[in-house]
């Protein structure tokens, strides 16, 4: 088989095409939301939330509610709690993330130990699985991406203002609390939609790496968002293809591709600065 036909080989399978679409959409989604998270000094929020939704996963399994619904509501509640604790007291985002998400994760583990799981496989939830992607997952991730694009466009200035300078934004009449809640909801949905392919353990990287790469090359905030979304989509697409060919879990290859791009861009931009 030539290398060209080997590249096209996986496209014969419906599950691969579904997985590829979800990985690409989810990458763009994480890249976009990751920009706000990293700039707010909450890079570990994605990591924390991905563990936190484990509690919702367990609770949904226990009471027989849809996995997406249970874990999604749980994730949104955790994100809002983190945001409230971090903003209202001088506790700091990192500590708030640590307390809320680990407690939620521990609760999930306790529930599953006591009552067992009637939901999807935990290995798939931890590391992501290309086989686990259903056509409905493609629709869900595409819908979440669409909603996120609308929110980012319609609330572009408010999101930028509250991320850059929340105190002055509040004084200028921006409803900072409401904008924060909106962002937390979008982030929770992004984490949830991404879990299927990337898995709990590696969602944080999908949120942080594209945003960090984009920061090294983008000169304006608008361009930063575009670059982060494109890098996220690109690493999702390439990582998913690599996953098929090297037979390694998709979450792992997606993150490794992102890390490789980061290393190249870091070296190139550092070299360019020295040259100047």
């Amino acid at each position, binding site marked *: 088989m030539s290398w060209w036909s080997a590249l096209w080989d996986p496209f014969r399978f419906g599950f691969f095409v579904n997985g590829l679409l979800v990985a690409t959409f989810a990458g763009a989604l994480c890249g976009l939301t990751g920009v706000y998270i990293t700039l707010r000094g909450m890079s570990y929020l994605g990591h924390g939330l991905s563990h936190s939704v484990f509690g919702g996963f367990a609770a949904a399994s226990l009471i027989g509610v849809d996995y997406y619904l249970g874990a999604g509501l749980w994730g949104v509640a955790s994100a809002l709690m983190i945001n409230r604790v971090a903003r209202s007291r001088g506790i700091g985002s990192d500590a708030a993330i640590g307390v809320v998400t680990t407690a939620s994760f521990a609760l999930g583990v306790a529930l599953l130990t006591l009552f067992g799981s009637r939901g999807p496989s935990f290995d798939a939830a931890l590391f992501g699985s290309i086989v686990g992607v259903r056509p409905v997952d493609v629709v869900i991730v595409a819908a979440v991406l669409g909603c996120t694009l609308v929110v980012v*466009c319609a609330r*572009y*200035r408010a999101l*930028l203002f509250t991320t850059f300078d929340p105190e002055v934004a509040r004084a200028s009449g921006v409803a900072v609390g409401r904008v924060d809640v909106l962002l937390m909801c979008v982030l929770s949905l992004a984490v949830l939609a991404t879990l299927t392919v990337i898995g709990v353990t590696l969602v944080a990287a999908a949120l942080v790496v594209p945003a960090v790469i984009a920061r090294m090359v983008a*000169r304006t905030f*608008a361009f930063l968002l575009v670059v982060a979304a494109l890098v996220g989509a690109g690493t999702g697409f390439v990582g998913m293809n690599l996953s098929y060919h090297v037979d390694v879990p998709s979450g792992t290859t997606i993150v490794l591709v992102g890390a490789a791009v980061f290393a190249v861009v870091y070296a190139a931009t550092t070299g360019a600065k020295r040259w100047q």
Partner: protein
Amino acid sequence: MPTTPSRPLLRLSGVDLDYGGVPAVRSVDLTVTGDTFAGVVGPSGSGKTTLLRLLLGTLRPTRGIVHRAAGLTVGYVPQLETINWDFPVTVRECVLVARRQTRLRPWPTRAERTEVGEVLERLGIGAVADRRIRDLSGGQQQRMFLARALLRRPSLLLLDEPTSGLDLATRHEILHMLGELNRQGVSIVLTTHDLNGIATHLPHIVCLRQRVVAEGAPEVVIRPDVLERTFGARLDVLEHYGLRVVVDRGAGLEVAG
């Protein structure tokens, strides 16, 4: 603050503010009118920033009343030290966020672009509109935040330490520019540690040490006894070509340009 015939914009009556039971400001009575150009001075921890936030409305008093004129628009310029200068945003983007977005598309309308361009030109930073904020000089950074505040067409401008960290020439440039804005009808209240700068440029000074120790024109307030009650240290005051110059005995002569 000055009791001029001009209309009152803000009035603080018997205002106290505590942080977790610890008093930050006590029994403050102040009036800001339409032509106020005042500087609040005091030692670190004297409540200057708290007072500014009370005027801004982001803090509510523990006791007392804040009267605000109907429809009052306030512009706020934060301390440069509080800003994340590595934030990836250009001058134009930073200023534009002050204009409320009224449509789904995120990019500015032609009218908004023109308006931002005009404000930047007016403050002399039109040429750096597309630079990242971290590439600006201290004076340009201060002007950028002034531009952002002015885009809201405020009747009152509040500035937290606008001269902090700037060289002497830039400090005077900024205070001169604020004087121009005040003459154009913008009421201004700022906090500062730069006693000689405000003694030269501002017509009204408020000395704060949790309470208002004294307020009035520089020749009334810039006196050794008032400064000692405000700062808890002996400061000498000299007359220099009709201007008052504060001399810190420990640090030598501070020259007001």
